[in-house]
């Protein structure tokens, strides 16, 4: 695997799959609209090679006004996307309720981008400590890997544990053990980490 690690930046190229292209194109719109976002959860594992599909890509964004959402909305439509489950006002209400409007390519319903306002400390930590990934020259931002690994253990389904193990084993030498242990302790998943990660 050819991959470059910088401080808070990862750079690599790969043959892009459908989910990669969706993430790149949607993040391009957010970057253009100057909306701070962070991709979290399963796509982080898929991005780096985990062999599985997904119906959606989860992300948090900073809190924005309705006017800012409207600005994003116009850009999003211009770039060939639509909101699957709401019109503009409904989407803003969903965001304010910490639920998710979902955005897909025109004439498609999935896979889609599941967008939520950051809500709790962990969400804001992800946003504040996001990692810039230059994927085939395109800029996307993902959450801290240490937090994602611990959170996946907390979610605890077979799929989540597999994602956690995949990310840990792939980046074992690059991860901050101290941060990972802190998140494992914070989320009280020490037993799962012992069973599925450390061994």
């Amino acid at each position, binding site marked *: 695997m050819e991959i470059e690690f910088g401080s808070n930046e990862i750079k690599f190229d790969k043959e*892009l799959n459908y989910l990669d292209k969706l993430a790149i194109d949607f993040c391009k719109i957010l970057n253009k609209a100057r909306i701070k976002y962070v991709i979290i959860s399963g796509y982080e594992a898929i991005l780096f090679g985990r*062999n599985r599909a997904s119906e959606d890509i989860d992300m948090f964004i900073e809190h924005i006004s309705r006017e800012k959402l409207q600005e994003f909305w116009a850009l999003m439509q211009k770039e060939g996307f639509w909101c699957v489950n709401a019109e503009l006002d409904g989407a803003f209400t969903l965001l304010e309720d910490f639920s998710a409007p979902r955005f897909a390519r025109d004439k498609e319903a999935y896979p889609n981008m599941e967008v939520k306002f950051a809500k709790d400390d962990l969400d804001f930590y992800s946003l504040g400590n996001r990692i810039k990934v230059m994927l085939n020259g395109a800029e996307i931002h993902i959450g801290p890997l240490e937090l994602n690994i611990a959170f996946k253990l907390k979610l605890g389904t077979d799929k989540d544990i597999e994602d956690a193990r995949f990310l840990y084993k792939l980046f074992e030498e690059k991860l901050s053990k101290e941060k990972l242990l802190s998140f494992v302790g914070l989320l009280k998943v020490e037993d799962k980490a012992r069973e599925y990660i450390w061994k």
Partner: protein
Amino acid sequence: MEISELKVDLKELEEFKKKNFEERLKFIDFLVDYIKKNPNKVWSRQQKNIVDTKTA
């Protein structure tokens, strides 16, 4: 044979599920090793086949 007549060993099924999961975890380790040892072009081409087939 009626469904009501079928006998299922739930303990055995539970063992099967556990073993299956352990094997999947071992395969994750194999996949990580494969990705580390091969150029991005090699593993990502295969990943694209899987992701795109399941997504399309």
